[in-house]
């Protein structure tokens, strides 16, 4: 990763603050994202709260390209009062897939009031890079994720159930205990028979293969 001096990104940060149109904002965010400066990370996270989906997508991609170094700031700066910003930050964490996000993702998936946040976290729980955890912690972490995803698969909101299927399918592709794999496949079989929502049912068929 190319890291440039923080002083040299200051003009890029200023350009974001001065942007007076959505197009200029997106351009300025793109420039900062391309600089890949650690000093720019808090600014990219702030952009997630601007209620501008175009700029948010660019900022998320920038944060994801920074990778592991963006994880701690994303966790610390998670916006408890703006669910739009929170959903984008969770999506960035999900794409980076660093298991340090596990607790944040578990609580977002279970208890956030915003469906967009819950969907993003639910999908992401299945996609963490378990190999980054100390080996002794992997089994316990996977078990927590499995329990939460199985519970979320019963949610009353179709979109949350859809996300749970995506999360469980991803979880099942990692290496895990055989009895958990059969638990996931039993859940899918049951959902295939009882799921009332056509879109979720189709997603279950796909997961079963």
């Amino acid at each position, binding site marked *: 990763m190319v890291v440039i001096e923080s002083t040299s990104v200051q003009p890029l940060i200023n350009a974001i603050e001065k942007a007076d149109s959505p197009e200029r904002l997106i351009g300025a965010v793109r420039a900062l994202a391309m600089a890949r400066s650690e000093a720019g990370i808090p600014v990219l996270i702030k952009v997630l709260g601007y209620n501008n*989906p*175009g700029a948010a997508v660019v900022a998320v991609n920038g944060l994801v390209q920074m990778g592991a170094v963006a994880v701690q700031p994303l966790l610390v700066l998670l916006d408890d009062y703006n*669910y*739009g910003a929170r*959903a984008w930050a969770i999506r960035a964490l999900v794409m980076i897939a660093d298991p340090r996000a596990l607790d944040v993702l578990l609580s977002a998936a279970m208890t956030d009031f*915003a*469906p*967009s946040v819950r*969907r*993003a976290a*639910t*999908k992401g729980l299945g996609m963490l890079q378990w190999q980054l955890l100390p080996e002794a912690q992997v089994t316990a972490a996977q078990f927590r994720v499995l329990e939460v995803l199985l519970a979320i698969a019963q949610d*009353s*909101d*179709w*979109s949350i159930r*859809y*996300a749970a299927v*995506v999360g469980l399918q991803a979880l099942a592709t990692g290496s895990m205990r055989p009895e958990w794999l059969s638990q996931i496949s039993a859940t899918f079989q049951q959902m295939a028979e009882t799921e009332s929502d*056509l*879109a979720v*049912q*189709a*997603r279950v*068929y*796909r997961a079963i293969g």
Partner: protein
Amino acid sequence: MLESSPGQPSNMPPVESSEGGSLTVEQAIANLTHPDLSLRYYAAWWLGKFRVSEPAAIDALIVALEDESDRTELGGYPLRRNAARALGKLSDRRAVSGLVRCLACEDFYVREAAAQSLGTLGDPICIPDLLWLLQDGVEAARPVSGRPHLAQPCEALVEALGLLAPGTEWQPEAIARIQPFLSHPVDRLQYATTRAMYQLTHETVYGDRLIQALAASDINLRRVALSDLGAIGYLPAADAIASSAAENSFKLFSLKGLLERQVREATPLSEAAIKVMDLMDSLL
């Protein structure tokens, strides 16, 4: 309210609500004739919100469609409006004849709610009554001075006809009546008409027009276009939906409409269905 996405069903159990305290189904039904008019109004909304479709609720709401006690200063009928909206959510076709009578109500918003609910209840018997409200042609879509609406609830009428008229004997007349609205200055009416024309003709020109509407400069119009494309399940729009400048929730709900149409008409695992699911996965 970005999170109250289009078409999102309310599956919450009838236990409590943040406004007005908790109700039971029996209380809500009883409250429809409560001396306190605000409790009647609230009860009608509540029964629809929590999808209380038991016969006693339907009967009481049908009676409320004729309510004379609850009036606004401008002569509107608030309870009738809420009862008409609720009945559209409760899937009981016994409500159809009462709703058809509401189409003649002097209150615009009662007519609008009735037209919407008749569309969702799916009984084509009301089509001549819907068409009748459009008999004045473009006059029906003339703005009423001093009021924030047109002479008739054209958007709701057009959408209901798009849902009900395809494949019926009234299809040609429905097309003739609504086609002039394709160039109406109110964008939402244009979109509703475009959507209904697609449902009535299956011509791709209408689906493509809604794809173009995804580039509208107003985010609210883009959201309407997303919802319309989902409603018609227009598969060629999949990529344009996924990359449109709107919140993921709206795009996800729109793509759900495409996926459901694929699943109904082909198989759950057709190539097209899998492509739509890939796009949906990426929007979670």
